[in-house]
């Protein structure tokens, strides 16, 4: 779809220009404006994906499927109430990415983050969380786009993907989220401050990463199987 | 001219060995109320979906579907969406948005309706359906009946000419179902909207319908006005007669050759004489008794034998329960005894705590006062593991909830996974229980692909693998048609004969009257009465069977169709 590509490029160009403009404005205004600028830049990374989805005029089944995946990611926690501090959300987002590809994966991740904040309260971290969770869906969606994942996984692949999922949370998604604390809670970004913020986030991210690995180990195959069946049957995405 | 017509429609799903619909022809006039009935799996849903282009299944099709004289395929999407409304079975999954007002507006939003018109139409329909009170509520706070009414209303805002309903009450309790069907009837009568409905609750719709069409194995076998269809079904000895409303069945049983009996054609009855409603039935019965007084005008109802204290399989004394410290009591001193080898029914209105009581009896909810004795031992003294092994089990209202695997067989195996049986014996145990519940044919299917009746029996099979001696059932007949109910009753009877004690919470008065040995009524948190069905229903005026309402004051203690027929023929 060449027409879409042109649009896509234009949207990304606008977003990039907006991000650059906000950085420049921030530099002029000075002071603490970088906090606002950072949030704007993050939003500029998120919005084009949504514009793209919107431009495609998605069909009913695509909208429903996206909504179902997001709702599953958000509601999954209830199934694990017996395990304290166990957060399966990122694992589910990664599975959604692996089943449907990078672009839907990103949407599932960022919308899930937005919705869970509707429930638990929005905060300055919302855009960052949308970016971080979207990244999980996107990166694991790339696995599907690259043909590494197709339907159910073999034992070796399952283990590899699960561990990669955990590591991704500890090394990428968690730290992106911590960055919002860095911007909002620290007055000057010094190496010590960064060490303190990311260091304080590490145990939490480790727990979250472990939960993600366990979720992937237990659920990747059952869910990928079910999603593949639906995808085949109704030709979604 | 017919508003909606099907001409020689034959349809088969891809890969299917034989067509699902064969040579179906049907005409529905404007403003008509057409009821489509037939056993489950006869092709009702497939036919109804052909009335709505976007929902028509993919497959091989010959024949035509006409709407307003032109082919339905030629009708553009927006016109079709507005003019043909479709209500499906599942009240929950049909809802798209999160609030009542938004759901009402959804269809108009999709069609790009301008804002002012939209406001007016939504306001109008919300008032017509009496939804002002819950207009701003979230949909998840609504009951199943309210959800289905919302689905109906959100289609009616588009002002359709035709309303197609595919078993809309299958997942509702009888009271909500009656309310829903009354609303559909009102829409037909007051707004002149054409109605095509597939329904197995014929007691409610049969008398409303202008036309009844009976389907069997993809064909329409009988079609016509309700009285002549009933006569034709009886003349053919069709199994569908089982599902007809009680007044029709009693009339045919008394005056005709009796159901399923291929007797020489009975002396031609005037078709107009057949009563369709309880009111008509009473009038007919009174005339009949006057003309030919029966030898016996009542059935004896001996008092129920008290269940001895130490013989009770399950005994609850003075149970009190509430869901939270500051919430009101749901159970207030329930006393109940269930003897071995009997099928006991627990009846009562919506929200009287029937399900809660069942959960208290199996320890899933803890009563804060009172005690439960299971097979002579206190519930609290038993470990959870022992309680659910060879002792007790509860089959929930929605049997789907206990299935978590990809096939019925895998789900049944799960029950034996940590048991003592060796693998070969497990297969054998599954085969045995599947035979008992008549689900051998579906063992390798996905639980979600089963029909309501099959699912209910498969769930029963799963529960029976724990070899329970006390079985608790919550609304076991919900969504089942009369054939499935009969099959279920046979399974339950077999279990009782083996000595199991069964307690079922049910709204289904007819089922309880016919099959239970004792009936308890739960009201305001405690047991208001326990008696034999004949004494219990024979004494009630409203909460009783259609046969009893029809024969009240004319015959004594008749609670089932057979009772009335038997007495009349004596």
């Amino acid at each position: 779809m060449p027409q879409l590509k042109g649009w896509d490029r234009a949207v990304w160009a606008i977003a990039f220009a907006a991000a650059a403009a906000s950085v420049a404005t921030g530099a002029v205004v000075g002071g603490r404006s970088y906090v606002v600028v950072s949030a704007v830049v993050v939003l500029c990374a998120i919005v084009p994906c949504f514009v793209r989805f919107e431009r495609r005029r998605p069909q009913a089944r695509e909208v429903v499927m996206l909504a179902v995946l997001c709702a599953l990611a958000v509601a999954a926690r209830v199934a694990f109430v017996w395990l304290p501090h166990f957060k399966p959300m990122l694992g589910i987002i990664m599975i959604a990415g692996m089943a449907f590809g990078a672009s839907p994966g990103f949407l599932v991740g960022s919308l899930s983050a937005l919705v869970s904040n509707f429930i638990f309260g929005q905060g300055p971290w919302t855009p960052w969380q949308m970016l971080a969770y979207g990244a999980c869906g996107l990166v694991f969606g790339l696995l599907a786009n690259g043909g590494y994942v197709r339907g159910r996984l073999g034992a070796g692949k399952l283990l590899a993907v699960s561990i990669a999922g955990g590591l991704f949370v500890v090394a990428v998604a968690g730290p992106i989220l911590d960055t919002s604390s860095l911007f909002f809670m620290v007055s000057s970004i010094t190496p010590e401050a960064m060490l303190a913020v990311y260091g304080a986030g590490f145990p939490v991210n480790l727990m979250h990463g472990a939960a993600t690995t366990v979720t992937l180990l237990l659920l990747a195959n059952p869910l990928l199987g079910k999603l593949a069946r639906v995808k085949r049957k109704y030709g979604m995405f | 001219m017919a508003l909606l017509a099907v001409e020689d429609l034959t349809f088969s799903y891809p890969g299917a060995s034989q067509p699902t619909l064969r040579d179906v022809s049907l005409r529905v006039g404007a403003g008509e109320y057409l009821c489509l009935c037939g056993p489950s799996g006869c092709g009702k849903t497939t036919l109804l979906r052909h009335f709505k282009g976007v929902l028509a299944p993919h497959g091989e099709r010959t024949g035509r579907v006409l709407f307003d004289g032109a082919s339905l395929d030629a009708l553009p999407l927006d016109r079709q969406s507005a003019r043909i409304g479709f209500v499906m079975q599942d009240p929950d999954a049909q809802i798209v948005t999160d609030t009542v007002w938004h759901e009402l507006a959804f269809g108009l939003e999709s069609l790009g309706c301008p804002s002012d018109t939209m406001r007016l139409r939504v306001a109008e329909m919300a008032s017509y359906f009496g939804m002002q009170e819950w207009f701003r509520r979230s949909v998840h706070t609504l009951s199943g009946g309210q959800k289905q009414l919302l689905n109906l209303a959100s289609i009616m805002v588009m002002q359709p000419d035709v309303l197609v309903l595919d078993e809309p009450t299958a997942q509702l309790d009888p009271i909500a179902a009656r309310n829903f069907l009354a609303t559909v009837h009102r829409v037909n009568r007051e707004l002149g909207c054409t109605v095509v409905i597939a329904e197995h609750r014929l007691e409610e719709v049969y008398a409303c319908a202008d036309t009844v069409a009976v389907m069997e194995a993809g064909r329409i076998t009988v079609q016509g006005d309700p009285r002549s269809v009933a006569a034709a079904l009886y003349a053919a000895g069709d199994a569908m007669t089982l599902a007809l409303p009680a007044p029709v069945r009693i009339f045919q049983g008394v005056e005709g050759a009796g159901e399923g009996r291929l007797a020489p054609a009975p002396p031609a009855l005037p078709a107009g004489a057949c009563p369709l409603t309880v009111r008509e039935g009473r009038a007919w019965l009174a005339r009949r008794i006057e003309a030919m007084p029966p030898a016996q005008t009542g059935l004896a109802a001996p008092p129920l034998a008290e269940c001895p204290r130490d013989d009770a399989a399950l005994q609850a004394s003075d149970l009190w329960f509430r869901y939270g410290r500051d919430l009101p009591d749901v159970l207030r001193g329930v006393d109940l005894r269930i003897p071995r080898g009997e099928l006991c029914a627990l009846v009562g209105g919506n929200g009287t705590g029937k399900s809660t009581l069942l959960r208290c009896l199996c320890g899933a909810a803890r009563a804060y006062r009172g005690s439960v004795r299971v097979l002579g031992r206190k519930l609290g003294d038993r470990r959870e593991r022992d309680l659910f092994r060879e002792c007790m089990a509860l089959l929930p209202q929605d049997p789907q909830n206990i299935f978590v695997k990809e096939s019925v067989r895998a789900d049944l195996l799960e029950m034996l996974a940590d048991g003592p049986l060796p693998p070969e014996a497990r297969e054998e145990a599954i085969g045995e229980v599947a035979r008992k519940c008549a689900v051998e044919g579906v063992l390798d299917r996905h639980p979600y692909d089963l029909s309501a009746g099959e699912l209910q029996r498969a769930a029963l099979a799963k529960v029976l693998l724990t070899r329970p001696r006390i079985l608790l059932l919550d609304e076991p007949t919900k969504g089942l048609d009369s054939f499935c109910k009969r099959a279920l009753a046979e399974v339950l009877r077999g279990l009782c004969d083996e000595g199991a004690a069964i307690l079922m919470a049910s709204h289904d008065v007819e089922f309880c009257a016919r099959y239970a040995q004792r009936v308890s009524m739960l009201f305001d948190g405690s047991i208001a009465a326990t008696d034999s069905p004949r004494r219990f229903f024979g004494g009630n005026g409203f909460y009783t069977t259609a046969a009893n309402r029809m024969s009240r004051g004319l015959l004594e203690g008749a609670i089932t169709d057979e009772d009335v027929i038997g007495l009349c023929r004596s």
Partner: protein
Amino acid sequence: MGFDSYHPAVLLAFFTGAIVLCVIVQQPLFQAAGFASAALCLICLRGREGWKTVAAMLAVLAVLACLNPLFNTGGETVLFRYFGGRPYTLQALAYGASTGCMFATVMLWFACYNRMVTSDKLTYLFGGIAPAVTLTLTMVLRLVPSYQRKVQQIVQARSCIGKSSARGGLRQRAEGGALTLSALTTWALEGAVTTADSMRSRGYGAARRTSFAKHRFGARDAVAAAVLAVCAAVAIACLLGGGAAAQYIPVIAIPPLSPLGWAGFAAFLCFMLLPSAIQVKGDLTWRFLRSRI
């Protein structure tokens, strides 16, 4: 009655403006005013609960202030030294307090935002620009409670046949949870097909979507928007013109407010106090009306 009954666009504009202004401004008087307005707004909305949140945020402010000198050693006035000579300075402490105040204010505004801008307002607002995304959001918001209930039903039903998920070790619990979730997924996908059918049979995709106008942009919304716009413009002009300049490191330099600064402060305060003022006015009107009944 209160500010939350205004048009969602006004609400969103207010919160965006309030949060951006409170983040950028560094002048202590402005910051204190911002914090106080946010606290007042929350207390108007939530009463006793609001007080608790405000107290908690003050504690956070104090902690952030005290921690800052540990990471930032800039500043001339050394209060004490630790770890063999690392300085703990007054200026860093003051700057930390300023940042802490910013964070606490933002958190309080978000607490107000969460009470006032509910999801349906947000989806209403973006329904025209992004119909597919907002529809998806609406659907997710509907599905989440329904999935949560379904999980509870599955767990309850299974516990009544001896398959409780609360039993066993961590491994068994995790597996029980996974089994429940996998059953939930089957059910959810099954429902998705019905929902998609229901959407298509109600014309989804047949035309460009319009949205049900639940809110109307009335005269009072226009007035409020105009007031906000003027105040924001003056405040921003003051900020860019250096009317609210403040420096913390290496030395604390906070010049007294110039006339421009005072004008900016007045506009800033006016902006921030708007919701509380509307709330209080609403309460007073109500009391007055009641006394006349």
